[in-house]
């Protein structure tokens, strides 16, 4: 019983630290990895509270798939949060909604 309590408290501290790190970090790649760590610890919590189906689902979907779609988004947008964009006029479109190359 005591062992259970210690494990839960240690995991809760790591969980909140990872959440604060995910929100405060300016480099988005590390923030996304911290979100993966949150899913991992959450899966362990679900197992401790006797819910094996939910733990399997959170592990399969939250750790692998959510992290990968975030990383693909970072690759297609900017890597850092405080990036100042280059001055660029927005693309103009013609009558058939095709983008006119400047």
């Amino acid at each position, binding site marked *: 019983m005591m062992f259970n309590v210690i494990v839960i408290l240690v995991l809760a501290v790591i969980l909140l630290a990872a959440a604060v790190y995910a929100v405060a970090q300016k480099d988005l790649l590390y923030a996304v990895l911290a979100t993966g760590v949150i899913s991992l610890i959450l899966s362990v919590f679900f197992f401790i509270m006797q819910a094996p189906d939910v733990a399997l689902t959170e592990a399969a979907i939250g750790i*692998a798939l959510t992290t990968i779609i975030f990383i*693909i988004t970072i690759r297609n947008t900017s890597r850092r949060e405080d990036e100042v964009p280059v001055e660029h006029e927005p693309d103009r479109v013609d009558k058939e909604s095709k983008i006119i190359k400047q």
Partner: protein
Amino acid sequence: MKKLLVILLLAVVAYSLGTALMSVKFGENRLGKVQDEETVSAFYLNNTPEKLSVANVVTAIVVNYRGFDTLGEVSVLFLAAMGLGSILYHRHKEGEEEEAILKPSSQLVQAGSKLIFPAILVLGAYVFIHGHLTPGGGFQGGAIIATGFLLMMMAYKDYKVSHKVLTWVESIAGVTFAGIGMWGLIVSQSFLENTLPIGTLNNLFSGGIIPIIYVAVGFKVAAELTGVLDTLLNIKDKH
């Protein structure tokens, strides 16, 4: 100024959640006696091993007692995959060369992933076939299979998953799910009614329509998630 207001709002939310959770004691037994069936959960726990012969009560709830909600969830996943594909649509102009988005990976990764990919597929299939006996089910197995395809897509530069096959698999699985529901409606006047023979507890062929529906859901979720990942990984870079 805005930060102050937000912190005030967060304090109000924390206070209200905290006082509300003070009255919900952690670990208290709210089910009552299971045989008396005073609550809905007690009813599910009491009737699942006898009336349905299914070992996993969560599977019985998701597929049989609340099966219509699972049909809704599967259609939400389908809508998400469709929305993603249409938002990221890029018309291919002629003469535009297809540049690869990923660098080729090392020899170790390529050889290893070719070895481990069938094992991941078998694990995913095992999880969704035995969904009514052990923890698992359609969604978990589908996600595992999609992760296997993701491994192959990232190890090999030009690993293509045929979109036609994915579309057919997904459509047939969805039609199977809805078709079993309509069959229940025709035979015994209730959508998704359990009509096949029940069998004995802890057998592979038990539980009536529950394993069949979960196999269909497993295939559908695997095909959808693979399609989503394929769409995302093939975004052509503009610069």
